[in-house]
């Protein structure tokens, strides 16, 4: 660890200068950062859509803030932007790109140029979304259900084409990551010494490569139907609208795991590093990611229990849905067990790690209601579902993502943010998040349908609470944005390994890393969770 002289050496941020050196870089770290900027910009946009929706829902009558048409466009864009432009690329493309080669002890990903291409494809896809905004927006919901999406006058073709293009970015990144993990591991870095973040990125990449083409085909068929009037999904032209739902969810359910598995990866790192304990049940966590990746392909029908699919199909999908719950439960238990007899430090990244356990546990447990057939008949397409997937997608992925940003911020930029403001913002986010979404379980249980611009007055109280919660979230995220940007210039400089972590990105390179990641090829002897604080004398403790 020759870091003393590295401080004077140029790092990946300063190695070359000028806009072109960024736009045409093949450095995975720079590409990761550019993704990060894109993701955060769209997160801001998607978040503002959400705040607008919540404001309209303060009163039962529609129209005291925005019209029904605007409301429908807003919830559609909120969903589409958050799913396709934020959550899917957030951890894998932004943090994953930055971290994967560093964690593997590699100089870059296997195909650096392909990596740049996926970034540009992402940019192109997001341009189509921006074009959609300009050209009459979109009011189909992010799911583009037919035949509504065939008949509405909004810019369905440009939006679906945008999602179609974004899919390629996802596929290319996935391919790149799979090859990188297989071929670029440092000597000594065997599969069972991989940081769990790598296992998670690997499982995600497999799903991305296998599932995304199905979405591409589905969206293409939708475009063909809309433009050439070939009846595929629209019954008016001889098509079948339920077929669309099968196709769509065949991708979009695995996509839920594309979104959450990387969050699991971050969670494993946060919990282990900041409690100075070897992760509990390494193999179980790693293999449960793989199990989830496989089972996730055969549970899509649980989105369609009341859609008119056959009852038998409903029963089979319900069963398989419960099967996917088990590996997820195993992970949660293992993270809690990791805390046992640890040395837990409550810094900002760890607060998000613990927050994730709280919110994701609620998200996971409430999934059980929706997997149970008869209960789902009542809860399907109500606010219960809205609450459930926000607890998973936001309480899971986004919270992990925010935790990950705080954890690797010193690595990315070599500076530390304000710990005090970090904690204050985390408190706002924790309170705001639960206030926004916990009520929505109750609303759903009482029968409040989702995607409603106006509602019956008995639901108002819960809606008001929810809206106030969303304002707290806005405050929390604003504070984070301010102190993170502030830290870039004014933050305290940090050494290569401020957290005392044991994986290669911390132990073998500077903060920020040099352009080519490592001086020479790192060799791995140590386990990534073998912290010096671990008491090796009481060997009887180990089973």
């Amino acid at each position, binding site marked *: 660890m020759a870091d003393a002289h590295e401080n004077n050496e140029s790092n990946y941020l300063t190695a070359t200068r000028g806009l072109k050196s960024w736009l045409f870089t093949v450095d995975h770290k720079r590409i990761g950062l550019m993704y990060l900027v894109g993701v955060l910009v769209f997160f801001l946009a998607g978040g503002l859509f959400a705040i607008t929706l919540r404001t309209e829902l303060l009163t039962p009558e529609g129209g005291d803030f925005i019209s029904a048409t605007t409301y429908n466009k807003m919830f559609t864009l909120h969903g589409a932007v958050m799913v396709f432009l934020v959550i899917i690329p957030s951890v894998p493309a932004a943090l994953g790109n930055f971290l994967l080669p560093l964690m593997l002890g590699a100089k870059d990903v296997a195909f650096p140029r392909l990596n740049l291409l996926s970034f540009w494809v992402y940019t192109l896809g997001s341009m189509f979304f921006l074009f959609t905004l300009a050209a009459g927006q979109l009011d189909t919901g992010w799911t583009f259900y037919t035949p509504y999406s065939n008949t509405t006058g909004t810019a369905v073709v440009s939006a679906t084409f945008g999602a179609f293009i974004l899919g390629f970015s996802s596929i290319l990144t996935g391919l790149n990551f799979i090859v990188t993990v297989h071929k670029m591991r440092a000597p000594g870095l065997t599969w069972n010494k991989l940081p769990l973040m790598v296992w998670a990125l690997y499982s995600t990449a497999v799903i991305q490569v296998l599932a995304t083409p199905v979405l591409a085909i589905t969206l293409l068929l939708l475009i063909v139907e809309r433009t050439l009037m070939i009846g595929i999904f629209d019954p008016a032209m001889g098509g079948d609208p339920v077929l669309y739902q099968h196709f769509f969810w065949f991708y979009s359910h695995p996509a839920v795991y594309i979104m959450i598995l990387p969050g699991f990866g971050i969670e494993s790192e946060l919990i282990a590093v900041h409690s100075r304990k070897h992760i*509990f049940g390494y193999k179980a966590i790693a293999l449960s990611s793989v199990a989830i990746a496989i089972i996730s392909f055969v549970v899509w029908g649980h989105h369609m229990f009341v859609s008119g699919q056959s009852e038998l199909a409903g029963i089979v999908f319900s069963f398989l849905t419960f099967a996917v719950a088990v590996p997820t439960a195993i992970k949660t238990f293992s993270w809690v067990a990791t805390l046992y007899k640890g040395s837990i430090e409550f810094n900002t990244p760890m607060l998000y790690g613990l927050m994730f356990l709280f919110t994701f546990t609620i998200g996971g447990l409430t999934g059980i209601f929706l997997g149970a057939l008869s209960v789902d008949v009542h809860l399907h397409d109500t606010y219960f579902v809205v609450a459930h997937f926000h607890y998973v997608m936001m309480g899971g992925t986004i919270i992990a993502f925010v935790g990950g940003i705080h954890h690797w911020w010193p690595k990315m930029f070599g500076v530390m943010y304000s710990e005090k403001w970090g904690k204050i913002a985390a408190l706002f986010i924790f309170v705001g998040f639960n206030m926004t979404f916990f009520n929505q379980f109750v609303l759903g249980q009482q029968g409040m349908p989702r995607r409603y611009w106006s509602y019956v007055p008995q639901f108002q109280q819960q809606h008001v609470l929810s809206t106030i919660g969303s304002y707290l979230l806005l405050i929390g995220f604003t504070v984070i944005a301010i102190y993170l940007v502030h830290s870039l210039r004014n933050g305290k400089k940090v050494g290569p390994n401020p957290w005392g972590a044991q994986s290669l990105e911390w132990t073998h390179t500077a903060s920020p890393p040099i352009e080519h990641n490592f001086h020479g090829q790192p060799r791995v002897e140590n386990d990534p969770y073998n912290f010096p604080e671990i008491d090796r004398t009481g060997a009887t403790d180990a089973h």
Partner: protein
Amino acid sequence: MILSLFTAPENADAKQAVADAAAPAAEAASAPLPPLETAHSWAMPTQASTFAESTDNLYWFITALDTAFFILIIGAMGYFMWKYRRRSKEQKTSSITHNGMVEFLWSAIPTVLLLVIFVWGECDFVKQSVPPQDALEVRVTGQKWYWTVEYPKYPGVTLNSSTDEPALTLMVPKGKPVRLTMTSNDVIHSFYVPAFRLKRDVIPGRYTQIWFEATKVGEFNLFCTEYCGDLHSQMGGVVKVLEPADFERALKEAGTLEQEEGESMADYGARIYKRRGCVACHSIDGTDGTGPSWKGIWGRTENLASGTVTIEGERGQQYIRESILEPNKEIVSGYAPQMPSYQGQLDDTQISALIEYMKTLK
């Protein structure tokens, strides 16, 4: 307040239009609130069908299990957070990395519990899927943005959530199984009655079927739960459960739409306007709807594809009659051909009554 559920989205005038349209019932309509279905803000909705109790029992069973596991997981987390907080930088940590027995248990126990939940939910779901032979047959049609309900056993009865006051959509007898055969005329909708714990998508081009048996007399909310466009959140209605004798009486009444003694043709027309659903697309206050407003229609000159028509005298009568029976033959320019034919649904007297009614709308 019930009116606020069924008003047009963007302007208050349209709201008023619907209110005016329901004018004779205005006093009745302004009083009742939408059915309030929960006892307090944490309760489930009223249980009003034979499915409700078992569904709720499973709901509360899962809630209890979830709460127990949540306390276990988050309790352990909280305890560890306190017990093993970092007191000094040198604090030693345990070298435990795994424990086969513990890991087996925390995989096996949830698996068994999940299986119980699966079987319970599955059994109830199967019950909901098989309607009894003697169920009362009801046809439900969804369209943007209202429901129409017909009873093959009671010809001539059509309930319509956008016109029947206040939003009466479905009447069913208590204690008798009812089978709904549903389809949509445009996009996918979903038929949801929280008090019955009942929901099924309503799909264009195919029939979906559900059944239930109501157990409680009263009025219950009906919601559309598949996003269907601008007025999705207004595509609701009221399900009214009646004692079987009251039900027979109500349907008989609903099935007749005849001129009453002493009723003028124009008043009769006004009733038809509401009951037969004209109100859904044609306003009477000048607001533009799916079709042209009826305000000032008599005497107005409209552009058609084949030229113009001035709606008055013999030619006017003829044009209106034709537009009701063959609506898409000659459409007022600027409007889409969306109106269904009323051939066989309105007789000559009724059409004449509608024309008389139009004449009053200056």
